[in-house]
């Protein structure tokens, strides 16, 4: 085999390494890092990008060089040299990818562990905090369980009232409506439900904020079990670890915040968890990543990361608003009004817009129609 002289190889090797190292760090392909997990994932990506760039340049370089250097001359009808193989060379290029892959695997394992992928013990602790065990014993769907969390929070606080209000307001009532297909006898704490647990430095500590997330065609609903606040957008305080208890109401959805680099499927009949720590104030899109029907592309929401003070202020305003709602919900006979009429005053404060409600309703009809065997 016609290996070029060692000096040239060395120089090309150095150049290749430098280019790969530079591009691996400066590709500019990722969005901003807005969670504490993001830099870890990006570090892993940059590492793989460096190796990938090197491999890409080697392969394309050899191909382009061969294309020019080894093309057949018009008057040359002879064959190339008879070379069948070269055992040391083959061992070399088997072991190099093997070592690289091992490196990537070890690094991935490390990152996975650091973003909390390997802490199954957190699970029961987090739920112990929310009296999930009680919820589990009760018959009810995943969403019912998430709402039950709220109603069964510490009775010494006034959360219960607020939580009941939340369970009675039309949007969540629609979610809990019998006609929407959901697994009635679900063990909402499915043992196989996937999760990202807490990061090693936060292991054993309770998450600072718990939010119950429900995906439904075609919206996200966020319930804050400690206060009973229900919202269509996710508000989180920066610098605090957030635990999402994710469930789905009808079909599979996937909760994804690109700027946070985390994604978790919401699976009907199962409860899954996602933990992350927002690190940057701002608004970021929440995307449903799993195909969930015709309006899949429109199933969007926002995560609003605020300073803890702003977050508390928002929470207070929501508590007041939902308190109002509760009073008015009791005062008015809601059955005299259509859901849409009833909802209209609250549309802006919830972030659940009227099209969401429309979709909710149409889905309700749809699923009632197509599920003759649902119950």
């Amino acid at each position: 085999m016609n290996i070029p002289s060692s000096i040239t190889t060395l120089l090309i090797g150095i150049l290749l390494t430098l280019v790969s190292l530079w591009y691996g760090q400066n590709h500019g392909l990722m969005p901003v890092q807005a969670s504490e997990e993001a830099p870890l994932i990006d570090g892993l990506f940059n590492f793989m990008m460096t190796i990938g760039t090197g491999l890409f340049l080697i392969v394309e370089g050899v191909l382009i060089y061969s294309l020019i250097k080894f093309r057949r001359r018009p008057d040359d009808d002879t064959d190339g040299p008879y070379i069948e193989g070269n055992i040391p060379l083959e061992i070399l290029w088997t072991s190099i990818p093997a070592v690289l892959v091992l490196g990537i695997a070890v690094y991935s394992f490390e990152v996975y562990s650091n973003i909390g992928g390997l802490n199954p013990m957190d699970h029961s602790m987090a739920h112990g905090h929310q009296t999930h065990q009680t919820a589990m014993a009760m018959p009810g769907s995943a969403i019912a369980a998430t709402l039950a969390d709220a109603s069964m929070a510490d009775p010494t606080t006034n959360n219960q009232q607020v939580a009941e209000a939340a369970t009675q307001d039309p949007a969540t009532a629609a979610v809990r409506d019998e006609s929407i297909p959901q697994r009635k006898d679900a063990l909402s704490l499915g043992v196989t439900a996937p999760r990202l647990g807490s990061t090693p430095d936060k292991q054993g500590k309770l998450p600072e904020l718990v939010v119950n997330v429900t995906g439904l065609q075609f919206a996200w609903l966020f319930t804050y079990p400690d206060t009973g606040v229900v919202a269509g957008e996710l508000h989180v305080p920066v610098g605090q670890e957030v635990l999402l208890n994710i469930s789905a109401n009808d079909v599979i959805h996937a909760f994804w915040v690109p700027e946070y680099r985390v994604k978790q499927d919401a699976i009907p009949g199962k409860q899954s968890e996602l933990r992350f720590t927002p690190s940057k104030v701002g608004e970021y899109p929440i995307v449903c990543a799993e195909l969930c029907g015709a309006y899949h592309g429109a199933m969007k929401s926002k995560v609003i990361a605020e300073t803890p003070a702003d977050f508390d202020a928002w929470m207070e305003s929501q508590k007041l608003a939902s308190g109002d709602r509760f009073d008015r919900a009791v005062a008015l006979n809601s059955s005299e009004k259509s859901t849409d009429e009833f909802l209209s005053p609250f549309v802006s404060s919830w972030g659940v817009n009227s099209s969401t409600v429309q979709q909710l309703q149409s889905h309700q009809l749809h699923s009632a129609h197509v599920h003759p065997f649902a119950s």
Partner: protein
Amino acid sequence: MTQVLQEEAKVPGQGAVPEKRNWRKYFSFSTDHKVIGIQYLVTSYFFYLVGGLLAEAVRTELATPEVDFVSRELYNGLFTVHATVMIFLWIVPAATGAFGNYLIPLIIGARDMAFPRLNAVAFWLIPPGGLLLMSSFLVGAPGSGWTSYPPLSLVTDQAGQAIWILSVLILGTSTILGALNFIVTILKMRSPGMTLNKMPLFCWAMLATSALILLSTPVLAGALILLGFDLIVGTAFFNPTGGGDPVVYQHMFWFYSHPAVYIMILPIFGLISEILPVHARKPIFGYRAIAYSSIAISFLGLIVWAHHMFTSGTPPWLRMFFMINTMVIAVPTGIKVFSWLATIWGGKLRLNTAMLFAMGFVSMFVIGGISGVMVSSAPFDLHVHDTYFVVAHLHYVLFGGSVFGIYAGTYHWFPKMTGRMVNETLGRIHFVLTFIGFNLAFLPMHKLGLEGMNRRIAEYDPKFTTLNLVCTIGSYILAVSVIPFLVNMGWSIFNGAKAPSNPWGGLTFEWLTTSPPPPENFEVDPVWTIGLYDYGTEEATEVIKAGPVLAMAAGAET
């Protein structure tokens, strides 16, 4: 080359061999493996064009962020049927069905496949399966993606979904029958003297592929039958409303559908291993490494399925298990890529269209391979799963890999199949347009996915408009690139220069018979005399110069 032609003209009796052209046999139940192979090839190219039109409709919709070209429901139907057509009616039938059937008996020196009638049955399941799938557009095409995850697949477009299930079952049955035939043919019908370690690399690839098909396709059939029960009868295997588990479907589905990507790419690896040495005029580098790595990929391919489920139903330790298994596949694949590069290195490259597509295959497949290792990393996959990064990755593997490979194979064996040469100028135009269009269409998708664009959506954030427009323009160039190809094929079949038996100077058995081969393939049973990849040796030069008769005579003497 001219010398071969002249030699051949002098051989007595040679003129009597090519039979009369009879187009009717290509539309009837023939048991000749060559007819069946060409039937597969033409049918799958037809569905390639159909799938391509569906893709263009999808890209046209995505040219703007709003939903303005088709309805959302139709959009979901378009990409679902696009994916199903491209996988089950284009790449699999073209790679295994067409090239497997056409080449394997020729390349191992047999007169036909082991079970010619079964072979014909396998082919004749394809057209009705395909037409059935198309008919779903009349009742509302299935809109839950080619993965058809329940519960979504149980609640939307149920008639279309039922049709989808039935048609995939029919197409899967066809694949299973084909695989049985390949295994028996390769193991039992090789010409005397052709041991496993001397047989062409394409046979190794098809052996590995067929094993995968037999092991995994029945599991898909099981999943689809259960899904069909849920859909039609109202059982609750996968329906959470009745206590079923939708994640179980994902396990069963991916137990087939991940190996399916190797079912699509392994035969192409085989084709490339046959094409590169012929046009580089060098022996394949590391025969055994390439052969055994096919088997390794086949085995490892069976234990990686859960990497599609990193964000859904897998416990943490399982994620790590599947992450490492998946990454390990990069090793045998890397062996192949480096062996191909070493085959090219120092050769005398004849840069005709077949070679350009073969080299284009290597260069593009590498990008898909690198992004494949990236998505196999569980923490990184938590970011990019179900995004355009994955769409880019899979198109680099399946278009840059499989489609480039099928094109290379088509150009390489066109003279053998039709007895005519292709027009190289049109071929090069086809290559250049395909290469540019392909990269323009799919390279920006990597960035789109990383930035936050999810897949399977008709509307998207306006901040992604520019890159999507580039992708759409690239897809149009890709569509245009098919025109010179079709013109070339159509024109060359009737008006191309007459092809000699061995236009490229190849050493595998199919080049020892006439172009096109007679019904029984060989006048005399060919016997293996020199290595199939012994380019650069004096014997090989003599065999090629002397033309087919010498080799056959030499074979007959032993």
